[in-house]
């Protein structure tokens, strides 16, 4: 054993350390298989109605099982529902629940789903992510306190049959049901313990794992749920998730063999990682967009030519190749390519032009808008504090400088940044969006007038809104995709947002972890993985 050999040379202290280390190794070297994960965040909660982060999803997503769930390749597969039918108008879904139980042996019923969906939407629950369920008929009215929870379009026909009525046709609905906002919660436990239901001694779940231990800022331990309907297929007995966020510290732990999976790494480490850990470094396209919203309600940004010029002048290839270097793709659309229920995205018209031509055209556009050497365009570019955001902002400012634009870089901590965006207190700002479900609507709706505060730049164009409205009423997938593409084309012509790059997911996965597949939503359920000794 390599470690022992090294230790012998380090005398008595090292000897003791070795004994302890060995004891620890022996202790865990029994039949039990353990997966140790660098999870990049302390969960705010384990109640699926209160979570919102990817690091929480990596925990609750293997504790609870929605009607549909993610397969090993990230695609939607049956979960708690074994089958379903959809009405011809695409509005009524009838699910047949699998015969399965909560981890305390109580059967999971359609009533648990009804209870959960009413609970997350109740104003008193104050669930921040509830609006994701607005696809369901009556959800918005319940959530805003305008209607009683009983009016929600979710009902239990019998213990194992659930009927959900939608507000409009939504081809992404089955995919949306994999999201944690749609997980069931155990009615019998929540009603008995109230807020305390999530505590280790009370919680029960219907997924592959149950909560075994939670020491804040230290770790969360999940133990295999022997009552899981498909427990026989679950290979890993224990999953330990460490909340450490410091990417380089996690990378050192990974190198030292203390963790098996690191769910992110620092971009500036990419050269080292590619040279030293090429097989462990996993980079894959991710359904997300890094973009700069422009405040269209504020002159001179209400002028389309100014926005187009700003967008054209940004050399995205330089940003992804020289600044990021992590395999991100230069973005010329708002919807990332490869999004489901969509064809090729509608790209900006200047995608085919060379960068030199773009800069020339941008100069001309700015000139038309009344800006030039004697009247330079001056504004602020806001970004939230982060090394990457800063590097990109500096690069972009330099590119704009070529057009004679005078940009002031303004960084603030994340809460202040988003408060400013919400209140429209910005000229141009940094933002990002990761899809909640795999559908173009999940990106494009951000530019609808009715979206309100999340339409940061207050883009409001009737033709765009009408196409989005029409698409939301269209059940035919091809016709819908066509309408959405037309809407995106309008937005890409108007450039209320400057797309910069499509995100990639970055993971470090040890060689002995088997079954890992790169997925577009970066969801990898632990129940599908195994460890090869």
């Amino acid at each position, binding site marked *: 054993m*390599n*470690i022992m050999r*090294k230790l012998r040379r*380090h005398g008595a202290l*090292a000897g003791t*350390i070795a004994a*302890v*280390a060995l004891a*620890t190794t022996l202790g865990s070297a029994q039949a039990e298989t353990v997966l140790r994960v660098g999870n990049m965040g*302390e*969960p*705010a*909660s384990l*109640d699926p109605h*209160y979570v*919102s982060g990817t690091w929480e999803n990596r925990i609750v997503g293997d504790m609870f099982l929605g009607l549909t769930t993610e397969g090993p390749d990230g695609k939607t597969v049956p979960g708690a529902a074994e089958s379903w039918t959809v009405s011809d108008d695409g509005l009524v879904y009838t699910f047949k629940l699998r015969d399965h139980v909560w981890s305390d042996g109580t059967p999971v019923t359609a009533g648990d789903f009804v209870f959960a969906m009413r609970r997350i939407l109740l*104003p*008193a*629950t*104050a*669930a*921040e*992510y*509830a*609006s994701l369920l607005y696809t369901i008929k009556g959800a918005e009215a319940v*959530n*805003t*306190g305008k209607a009683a929870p009983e009016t929600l379009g979710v009902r239990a026909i019998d213990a194992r049959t659930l009927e959900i009525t939608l507000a409009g046709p939504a081809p992404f609905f089955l995919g949306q049901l994999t999201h944690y906002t749609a997980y069931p919660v155990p009615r019998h436990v929540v009603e008995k313990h109230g807020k305390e239901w*999530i505590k280790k001694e009370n919680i029960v779940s219907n997924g592959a794992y149950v909560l075994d231990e939670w*020491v*804040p*800022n*230290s*770790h969360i331990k999940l133990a295999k749920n022997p009552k899981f309907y498909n427990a026989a297929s679950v290979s890993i007995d224990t999953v330990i998730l*460490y*909340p*450490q*966020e*410091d990417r*380089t*510290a996690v990378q*050192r*732990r990974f*190198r*030292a063999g*203390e963790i098996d999976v690191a769910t992110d790494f620092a971009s500036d480490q990419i050269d080292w990682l590619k040279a030293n850990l090429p097989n462990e470094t996993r980079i894959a396209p991710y359904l997300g967009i890094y973009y700069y919203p422009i405040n269209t309600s504020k002159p001179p940004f209400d002028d389309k030519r100014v926005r187009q010029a700003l967008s054209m002048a940004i050399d995205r290839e330089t940003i992804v190749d020289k600044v990021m270097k992590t395999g991100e793709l230069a973005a010329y659309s708002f919807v990332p390519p490869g999004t489901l229920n969509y064809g090729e995205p509608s790209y900006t018209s200047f995608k085919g032009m060379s960068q030199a031509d773009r800069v020339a055209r941008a100069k001309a556009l700015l000139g038309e808008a009344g800006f030039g050497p004697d009247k330079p365009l001056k504004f602020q570019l806001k970004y939230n504090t982060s090394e990457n955001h800063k590097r990109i902002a500096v690069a972009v400012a330099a590119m704009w400088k070529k057009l004679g634009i005078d940009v002031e870089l303004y960084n603030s*901590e*994340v*809460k*202040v*940044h*988003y*408060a*400013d965006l*919400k209140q429209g207190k910005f000229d141009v700002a940094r*933002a990002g*969006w990761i899809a909640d479900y795999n559908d173009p609507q999940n990106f494009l709706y951000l530019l609808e007038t009715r979206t*309100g*505060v*999340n339409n940061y730049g207050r883009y409001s164009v009737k033709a765009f809104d009408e196409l989005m409205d029409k698409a939301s009423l269209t059940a035919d997938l091809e016709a819908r995709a066509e309408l959405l593409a037309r809407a995106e084309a309008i937005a890409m012509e108007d450039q209320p947002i400057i797309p910069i790059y499509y995100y990639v997911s970055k993971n470090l996965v040890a060689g002995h972890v088997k079954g890992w597949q790169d997925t577009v939503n970066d969801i990898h359920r632990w129940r599908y993985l195994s460890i090869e000794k």
Partner: protein
Amino acid sequence: MFRYVFRRLISAVPTLLIIVTIAFFMMRVAPGGPFDQERNLPPEIEANVLKAYGLDKPLVEQYLDYVGGLLRGDFGPSFEFRDFTVRDLIFGGFPASLQIGSMALLLAIVFGVGFGAFAALRQNSRADYAVMTLAMTGIAIPNFVMAPVLTLVLGVYLSLLPVAGWGDGAWVNKILPVVALALPQVAYISRLTRGSMVEVLNSNYIRTARAKGLRESIVVNRHALKGALLPVVSYLGPAAAAVVTGSVVIETIFEVPGIGRYFVLGALNRDYPLVMGTVIFYAMLIIALNLVVDLIYAWLDPKVRLE
């Protein structure tokens, strides 16, 4: 003496109240709120959330509610870590911070005073310069540089110690955080000790002691060191409070489940109750430790009388 302690503790109450008040209102003046985020909440939902936490009430009313809660020992819920109360978080995390901090402090005192005295006794010699150069380096190299270097060398390359993690409190997991936390303190204390020791060694009473023909070891250990420790002791009060309440850097790098991160995380997340809780906790510790320092001071220095 007991009357003195009692009086000091009573006088701490208005101090704490002032701290609570200032912290409460300063926190609210900061722009951005606890629920501002990438996905901004629709106005109706935001209203629900604010109502659930009583944040829709007038500020003064919130303040009175908060102080009222404090009197009942209720520090409120954490906005960010919704499954825990602030009390759970602070009392759950403090033991880890306390262990790491007190071990680091002990290490810092033993080595700091040792090195400082050693250097002072060999003033302007090569040994003195060597020790003081090391100490300067120790002060100059920040924790966030030293800690990764230590983990890289001892953890990754030599595989001697765990790189990070708490390991349910196993002592191997504590070595690196303790050492990394102690190093700058060792450096600072040794410089402090050396400085005051040099001064004391040149003072009249030491000359008298030597003139009496006392053995050098008695002069140094019984007379000089006692006097030389006074500035160290007064430094130790606030230093102890800072060290035992945890270091953000150390806790982040080594994944120590302490409370050092809560203050910074709380402030960044605008988790008002968590920030208030850590402020109050920290203030109480400082008050208590300053009292202890004053008591030690009186014991070390006969000129100081506690009445």
